């Protein structure tokens, strides 16, 4: 789009800068004109302009609304900074060569879904031979020894096995985020790693549909991988990080 002032971007409905946003929500009030007004008042209270409630549906005790309104605030896009895992991503063969050349030994990674999380499809996509969407998993990497502990692994077990196997990296998948389950579980893992004096030795990586690199580093992990990550992403990161650490 042309002529856009990136220091002040607003939602764009049909006219640049019109600020138009769509909302939907439920209010625990009976359906009727008063409810409609309450929905508008709510949006006005949050600082929106010209709220229009386009649908009001009687949910028998509560009321559902669809609304549109103008957002007056703008974002300075040119100042937005997002911490990202910043490293080149290599293909499987390149990763294997890099390992052979720079490390001269197999890299061991251990992974699983920890805590009460039983969603293994994500970690399997990263680790299993077959991989995901045509991207082979870590088990297929000749330079990597990949150990997948599966579902609902207690943090203690994960750390114990990491020590036992001499793992270079721990890969944790967290899918359930309801009531901040993942935050509690991941914080606990970091504490255990620190208590064991392992935090600096082992590379700790997390992944999942609602994980970002920023979130991961805030919790004390080395990297975080969100949706659409593949084995080569995490393999490239782990191997380069190992090389970096070796050099230091």
């Amino acid at each position, binding site marked *: *789009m*042309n002529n856009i002032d990136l220091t002040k971007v607003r939602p*764009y*409905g*049909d*006219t*640049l800068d019109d600020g*138009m946003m*769509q909302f*939907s929500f439920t209010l625990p009030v009976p359906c009727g004109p008063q409810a409609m007004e309450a929905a508008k008042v709510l949006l006005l209270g949050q600082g929106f302009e010209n709220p*229009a*409630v*386009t*649908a009001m*549906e009687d949910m028998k005790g509560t009321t559902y609304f*669809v609304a*549109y309104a103008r957002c007056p605030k703008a974002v300075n896009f040119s100042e937005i900074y997002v911490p990202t895992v910043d490293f080149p991503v290599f293909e499987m063969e390149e990763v294997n060569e890099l390992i052979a050349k720079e490390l001269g030994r197999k890299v061991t990674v251990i992974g699983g879904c920890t805590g009460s999380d039983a969603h293994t499809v994500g970690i399997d996509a990263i680790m299993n031979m077959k991989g995901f969407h045509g991207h082979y998993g870590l088990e297929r990497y000749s330079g990597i020894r990949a150990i997948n502990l599966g579902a609902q692994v207690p943090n203690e077990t994960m750390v114990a096995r990491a020590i036992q196997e001499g793992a270079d990296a721990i890969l944790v998948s967290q899918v359930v985020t309801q009531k901040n389950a993942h935050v509690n579980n991941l914080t606990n893992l970091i504490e255990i790693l620190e208590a064991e004096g392992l935090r600096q030795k082992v590379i700790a990586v997390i992944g999942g549909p609602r994980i970002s690199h920023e979130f991961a580093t805030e919790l004390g992990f080395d990297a975080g991988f969100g949706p659409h990550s593949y084995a080569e992403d995490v393999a490239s990161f782990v191997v380069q990080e190992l090389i970096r650490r070796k050099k230091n």
Partner: protein
Amino acid sequence: MHLPIDPSLIERSRLLAERIARPVLSQIKLQSTVSIERAVLRLLGVDGVDRDGIPWPNRVVDYLLENGMLERGAAYWLGQVVLDQNCSAQLAASEIVRGSLSRIKEKPLAEIREWGDVRAAERLSFLRQNREKRSEKRETLGLGQKPWKYLIVATGNIYEDIPQAVAAARQGADIIAVIRTTGQSLLDYVPYGPTTEGMGGTYATGENFHLMRQALDEVGAELGRYIRLVNYASGLCMPEITVLAAQNGLDMLLNDALYGILFRDINIRRTLTDQHFSRLLCASFGITINTGEDNYLTTADAVEEGHTVLASQFINERFALEAGMKPELMGLGHAFEIDPNREDGLLDEIAMAQLVRQVFPDAPLKYMPPTKHINGNVFRAYAQNTLFNLVSAMTHQDIHLLGMLTEAIHTPFLSDRYLGLLNADYLFKTARHLGEELEVKEGGRIALRAEEVLSAATSMLEEVEQAGLFEAIAAGRFAAICRKSDEGKGKDGVFLKSENYFNPFSDQLEGREKVINQATFAAKK
């Protein structure tokens, strides 16, 4: 999927449509309109606006009308000045307005005819060459898979429309329509230049056409896909907009006198006359027309009045054939408009869509999404559009207008178009061969509904044929709207052609018809 319908009813309907059109056409051929004359002037090279912003074609035609000279045809008078002063058409236009005609010694018609026929042949061949180039482009770049995804832009500002249209093309649109500003169809002139202020749409002007065409050609080249451009020719300026469309490489035009009559209260005789000339041009320049029967179901009930859509399509087909159009250029309109609360409504929609498909196998059908029964619950709207996309894929529609999330709220947001494409892409892929794989049960609800609609359409055509088209319209047979033939907007712009009326374009475009036309004159005397 194939409906077991009675071919004799289709044949009968076509015959009736021909009989309905015949008296109308012979009337039409006796008359011309201000807009046809302005279109002729435009074709001959008159363009631009005067200091007050009034288009020169209007200035000339208004002058001729006021001075009782129009019945001989604007080309005749323009020719007089051009030949007399050996000047350009544009200059001749201003000369006429300045009153030069009174100072000129009138040349004999034969001489004017010679000049006009040559000029017209030149202009037509030039525009046909453009058309050829565009056809080549379409073939080289290729068109998207059918149904073709048709999206509208309607910001009111051509410079905002363009990036939105380009983004839509990048997202997968095959066809872009720039909606006109509310009310333009009732203007008896075409605004000029690029425009930035429209209400619910953008002015249709030659320059706006040009700018959008250029942008779409660029993005089409980048994408390796030809993007078609559409605008609206229904309304008071149908012939002129057709000329501008041809000049600026548009691929399709909304073009339907019945729409204007019913929904814009345009005078019947005016717009049918305009339409004929306009369709002669479309036929010649390979512009696909889109008809507006889908609109009927926004005022009338889709179940009770479904057959009126089909009946009107037969009539529209006839009018198009009479203007020399091939079925390949007839984007006959219909719509998915049955109340979502109706039991088995989807079956009715399938029946109707497939019926139209079978009756007009070669026409690039224009299929409209649900609009009337969309409300402000945008999720519900998305579900309705999902089924619309399904039926379109199943019944092999061609020109597929994408359903918009906020149909009941405002003209589309950028994101409405995106979500519309997402939905259509999903359905067109996941249900690609569904139509081929399913058969309709004989004697079942779908088959019966199709039969019912077809035979009701045939009966309606019988009645219309008996009563005459004008009377049927006056009686509210179409879209439940009544329009009298001596009322409506623009009626003062129709006039009877004089015996020695001259219009080199219709002469050349009518071809065979010209002879009949002259025979009619002879008979009248």
